[in-house]
């Protein structure tokens, strides 16, 4: 029995004249993401995208799982393909729906006939197939008002498609249609969630991670790779840049007043990220900041770090509680990795009493004590590049 996946578009349908751009990008994304599973035909006709594995040995469960992580898809169904012959459609439906009908108590059949040459009208098809299913599964009754399942039979030009369960898609809009941005990723709970949320709004990601060996371990960096691999299930592939940050941190410690350590460090992170972002045609930065969560995420501190770069900075978690963030991190399966206990570069030199209400003028005066340009160039020349697939 040949199975395909039928995709219902999400918000894209609201996009008016741009709709074609969005649809094309979505199809490109689907093709690209399915590539590693195996060759699939992706067809867009009559406003419905159909994904059909080319070979029988391609695992349709894996294809469905992959589809469920692609942004721009509101819902999808697995469907069975049948020859356009009413008897054949009945038999195939019963066989295909057997497992699903074990779990439900009522159903109804809807038919859509776009191939008008087919000798039965839509109501006739619904009646024929419905009657046959009711006979085959006597425990499941027909209920046209509030059924557990709606079986849909579509008669298209090439074949008949039978499906019943509608599965939830990842929502959002296709990655790439919202431009490109760089996520500052630490290894904690927040930044992968922030990355996921912006990818959902169509943003293609580039990742920037700051490493401070020997204060941070190789395992901390591996952890970030692991997190980004989980995010990439939604966002698609991305490039991760690891910035060697030790010298800059040591310089801040040596030259600046302790209570400004964190704020200056974060300003440097923003500046370096902006440069990496520009080299990679990104138009914005993304951080996992949530207002008031830690000393460097107060309104005053954010004002001081925000001004360190010219790009817009997206902070999708700014108004969220930790619990809400954790809920999403569990959903996207990054939580378990995030809580592994490795030191990240934000905690190494953390002062006991950081400034929670820094005054920009004073911060800048402290920062001036460091001749950071040569150190920035050195760091940028020694970026480590990791491809995340």
């Amino acid at each position, binding site marked *: 029995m040949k199975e395909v996946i039928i995709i219902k578009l999400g918000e894209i349908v609201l996009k008016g004249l741009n709709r074609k751009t969005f649809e094309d990008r979505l199809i490109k994304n689907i093709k690209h993401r399915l590539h590693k599973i195996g060759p699939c035909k992706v067809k867009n006709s009559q406003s419905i995208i159909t994904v059909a594995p080319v070979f029988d040995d391609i695992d349709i469960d894996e294809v469905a799982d992959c589809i469920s992580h692609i942004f721009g898809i509101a819902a999808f169904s697995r469907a069975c393909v049948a020859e356009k012959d009413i008897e054949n459609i009945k038999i195939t439906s019963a066989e295909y729906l057997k497992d699903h009908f074990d779990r439900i108590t009522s159903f109804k059949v809807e038919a859509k006939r776009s191939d008008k040459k087919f000798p039965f009208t839509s109501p006739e098809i619904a009646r024929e197939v419905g009657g046959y299913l009711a006979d085959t599964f006597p425990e499941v009754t027909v209920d046209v008002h509030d059924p557990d399942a709606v079986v849909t039979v579509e008669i298209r030009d090439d074949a008949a498609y039978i499906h019943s369960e509608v599965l939830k898609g990842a929502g959002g809009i296709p990655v790439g249609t919202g431009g490109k941005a760089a996520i500052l990723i630490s290894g904690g709970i927040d930044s992968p969630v922030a990355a996921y949320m912006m990818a959902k709004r169509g943003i293609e990601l580039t990742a920037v991670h700051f490493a401070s*060996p020997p*204060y*941070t*371990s190789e395992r901390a960096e591996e952890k970030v790779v692991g997190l980004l691999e989980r995010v990439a299930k939604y966002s698609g592939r991305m490039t991760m840049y690891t910035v060697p940050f030790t010298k800059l941190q*040591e310089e801040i410690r040596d030259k600046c007043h302790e209570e400004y350590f964190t704020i200056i460090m974060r300003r440097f992170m923003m500046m370096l990220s902006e440069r990496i972002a520009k080299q990679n045609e990104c138009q914005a930065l993304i951080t996992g900041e949530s207002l008031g969560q830690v000393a460097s995420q107060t309104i005053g501190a954010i004002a001081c770090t925000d001004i360190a770069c010219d790009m817009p900075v997206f902070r999708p978690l700014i108004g969220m509680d930790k619990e809400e963030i954790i809920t999403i991190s569990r959903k996207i399966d990054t939580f378990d990795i995030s809580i592994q206990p490795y030191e990240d570069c934000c905690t*190494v030199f953390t002062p*006991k009493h950081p400034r929670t209400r820094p005054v920009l003028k004073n911060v800048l005066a402290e920062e001036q004590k460091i001749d950071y340009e040569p150190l920035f160039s050195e760091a940028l020349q020694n970026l480590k590049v990791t491809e995340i697939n």
Partner: protein
Amino acid sequence: MEEIYLDNSATTKVYPEAAEKAFQMMTRYYGNPSSLHSKGLEAEHQLTAARKIIASSMNALPEEIYFTSGGTEGNNTAVFGAVNALKKRGNRIVTTAIEHSSVMEAMQKLEKDGFEVIYLSPDINGKIRIDDVRSAVTKDTILVSIMAVNNELGSIQPIEKVHRIIENAKSPALFHVDAVQAFMKMPLVPKKYGIDLMTVSGHKIHAPKGVGALYIRKGVRILPLHSGGLQEKGIRPGTEPVPAACAMGVAVDMLSADHERHDIILSLNSYCREKLSEISEVVFNSDNDALPYIINISIPGFRSETLLHYLAEKNIFVSSGSACAKGHKSHVLASVGLDGDRIDSALRISFSEDITKENIDYLILCLKNAVSSLARSK
């Protein structure tokens, strides 16, 4: 750059001879010792030979050696096996606050099950006081479990007197010794000390990971943890880890024949201690009379992890606390009464005989550089 591996208490490099033996057992004598045919028999012969070597290294009988998958399985089998066999005769268990997690966690589980577990605290040098053992063991005590050598500090425990205490208390208790860190590193004859159960592991002594042995004194009965076949007399059912066990036999044989090793380690230890003392920030956590294979130090102000990674960049490998406790504060160092700063900056240096004085010099040089260049924690 040469590798300077100073984390031999975590695991060791397998002797090539032992690795070859394992290879031979996998490709030539690959039979199942339980099989009746000649392929099975030849594997059984090999396993018996290894069993004899391990038995004779501790002056025990071959039938007193039970192969396990390693230290954790050995400790669990001994602790739960003894308690399950004796639970009708008492409710009290005596152990220490500085056991390896495979004993500690087992004890905490027994405590939840309603047993009264006494955790003896060590002195500042990480040693249990024998008087504390004496007052803890009562006539309803069913198990006394004390490690021979602590894995983090190297402190040697007074296990030789425990047997007499159990006898005097008229207690039915079995005496278990976790000898994972001590095996082949100090004289250890269970019969002489009245030890009933003793755990050893292969990969700490240049044999592969995945094998260990539990000594069970002849006549002592414990209950198995797992259900299965009759291998290892049903105490440890499951096909024996033949390749690793035979490799362990080879390693034990080589170590038994090497009479210079102990002196080499002693002189490395005193050289290293002397050189470490040149760094004024260094504080010794291990006492002078600890097992010479282990030196535990702290450099307050520098986090263990930072120092460890710094040294790793120079191809020197040491441990922060114990390798099993990645990211957790050491319960051992806390129980000997060290303050947080010293625990946070603890490093364990553990030797094997192939370490040279030049290696130590390089370690010291790197530590000096670390102290002068790295950021101090706050």
